[in-house]
């Protein structure tokens, strides 16, 4: 496997330090967000093992920097469109851990009271406009939300997160062409974690970088970044948001990253070559960000305080979910239609 330095364009910032373009306050936010995503996802995994999370689940362990970097660059009102691997993107928008874990545990306190499940996390009031489990489906949908903003002269931007596998489905290409032709305020973020589900993306893709190498086909800039470096993600996101808000159209950003777990809970990821996971864990986004904060002079006690606070939040959410009731059976037939019910005849 090539080194990350060969594969990604690293951000080059003059005089890096706590008070550079990102600044201390934002750095602490980025760190806290990544720690939260890590701990919440790890907790979700532990809850599977206790058989308290049912169905399937797709974790973002190892990919936290992408979700944190983009979410921290957003403004209130910006919209997120996620895939079935959407826990991290949902949490990064400020959705309470309890609401997410509750949904995974199919409790009445979940975001959708158990009607959506892990793959469809939605919190409209936080700008999380759904998690979509059909590959590629949400790219055109994000275009539509962006079209509304353009049409109404509103300044929000829609961002759409997806995996490397999505770059080989038709909707990806339709959406990119559409967004460019209509000059829509939308950002397409490819999280290239090197594996589609079980098959390496490189085995089934015509180009080396599944998103970035396709950008030219749509007249877009080739943007390839280190998706394990929250600073690099944050900077790329800020540029893309600025472009979208200025009315200059969409961006396609490929973030190189790696998932520490399998594709889904059923997947032990035995297809990975020996040593690959360990190598990537050296570039664990949470670990490298923690080290960076220390290098920049943030006190160990301040870092630990964040970690401890997040731990407390995740623990409290877990206990609240364990104590929460299952959903009442009468919601089985609610909200099929806008009248609240499911009547299809008189």
């Amino acid at each position, binding site marked *: 496997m090539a080194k990350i330095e060969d594969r990604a364009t690293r951000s080059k910032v003059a005089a890096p330090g706590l008070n550079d373009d990102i600044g201390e306050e934002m750095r602490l936010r980025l760190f806290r967000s990544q720690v939260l995503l890590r701990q919440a996802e790890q907790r979700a995994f532990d809850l599977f093992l206790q058989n308290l999370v049912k169905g399937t689940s797709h974790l973002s362990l190892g990919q936290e920097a992408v979700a944190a970097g983009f979410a921290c660059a957003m403004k209130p009102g910006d919209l997120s469109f996620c895939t079935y691997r959407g826990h991290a993107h949902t949490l990064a928008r400020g959705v309470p851990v309890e609401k997410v874990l509750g949904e995974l545990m199919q409790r009445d306190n979940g975001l959708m009271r158990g009607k959506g499940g892990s793959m469809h996390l939605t*919190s*409209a009031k936080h700008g999380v406009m759904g998690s979509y489990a*059909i590959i590629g489906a949400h790219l055109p949908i994000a275009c539509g939300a962006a079209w509304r903003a353009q049409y109404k002269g509103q300044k929000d931007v829609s961002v759409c997160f997806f995996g490397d596998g999505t770059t080989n489905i038709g909707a990806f290409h339709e959406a990119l062409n559409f967004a460019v032709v209509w000059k829509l305020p939308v950002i397409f973020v490819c999280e290239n974690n090197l594996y589609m589900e079980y098959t390496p993306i490189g085995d089934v893709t015509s180009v080396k970088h599944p998103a970035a190498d396709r950008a030219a086909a749509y007249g877009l800039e080739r943007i390839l970044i280190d998706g394990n470096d929250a600073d690099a993600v944050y900077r790329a996101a800020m540029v893309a948001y600025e472009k979208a808000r200025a009315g200059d159209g969409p961006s396609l950003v490929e973030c190189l990253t790696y998932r520490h777990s399998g594709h889904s809970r059923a997947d032990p990821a035995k297809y990975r070559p020996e040593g690959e996971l360990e190598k990537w864990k050296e570039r664990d986004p949470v670990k490298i960000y923690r080290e960076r904060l220390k290098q920049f002079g943030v006190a160990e006690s301040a870092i630990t305080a964040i970690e401890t606070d997040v731990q407390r939040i995740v623990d409290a959410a877990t206990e609240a979910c364990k104590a929460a009731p299952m959903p009442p059976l009468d919601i089985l037939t609610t909200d099929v239609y*806008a009248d609240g019910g499911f009547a299809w005849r008189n």
Partner: protein
Amino acid sequence: MAELTYRDAVARGIAQEMTRDPDVVFLGEDVGKAGGVFKATVGLYEQFGPLRVRDTPISEQAILGAAMGAAMTGLKPIAEIMFSDFFAVCFDYIANEFAKSRYMSNGQLKCPLVVRTGNGAGSRFGAQHSQSVENWCMMIPGLKVVAPSNPRDVIGLMAAAVRDPDPVIFFEHKSLYPTKGEVPDGEIVDRLGSASIARPGKDATMLALALMVPRALLAAERLKAEHGIDCEVVDVRSLVPLDTQTILGSVARTHRLFTVEENPRLCGWGAEIVSIVADEAFYDLDGPPVRITTPHIPLPAADILEDIALPTVDRIVERVRRSMQS
């Protein structure tokens, strides 16, 4: 009151709603500058401009996806899929996205949009541009499905569909575009989920949809004149919501039921209605319900073959007569 073609009624219906509500926008392939391949949207681009009437690439997934994203966030889009056969390339949006987002999100998301499409046979276009696919949509929880048979209903049901808070699939029949009908002046707003009795009768109920409505009406005239059988023709109009009460009421009066369906036989819309009648009005029936449908075939291109594939007036008359006189 003015005489209008079904084709012009489409444009008038859309214009009525776009004039009323600036959030109504319209997108599709060739719908703007070209006025639509069926010329059903002529004048809208000129009247409402390029920001509200938008030509798209040939990207059916992008069209429906964009319509959904716009609908979720505050617009009321009307999207055109040129031929209903093309639903097969963007069916994810119809079956998985529009229909399920409200339920999956426990009511957080909405999807108030209309997909209008050219449905049905008669143009000799062959198997991939002629199907009647209303039953593809009827079976999906979360969708509403309408199919008008005349210009007045086109306008009224279009208005109802645009104003409806749920996703509505609006099937226009390609062979009805040149047909004419009387249309009142001023705003027309109909109601989804209401069938209409197109011809009252006392001996048998014939249910029909879209192009099959004028055929059922012609068949009813001949059955009366030639065989003394007085058929009530019910224009179903709306498959979801389904106006079961009007249908059951008609069967209770006539005691016989025939469906005239353009869709191929298996799982056609009439099958569902027959099952409802069997469940709820079995003892009203004096004979077995009969479904008159296109056979279980893809549609052929040749005119003499296509003509015998669909229920013809002759076939309807013969099937009803045989059943009523046995």
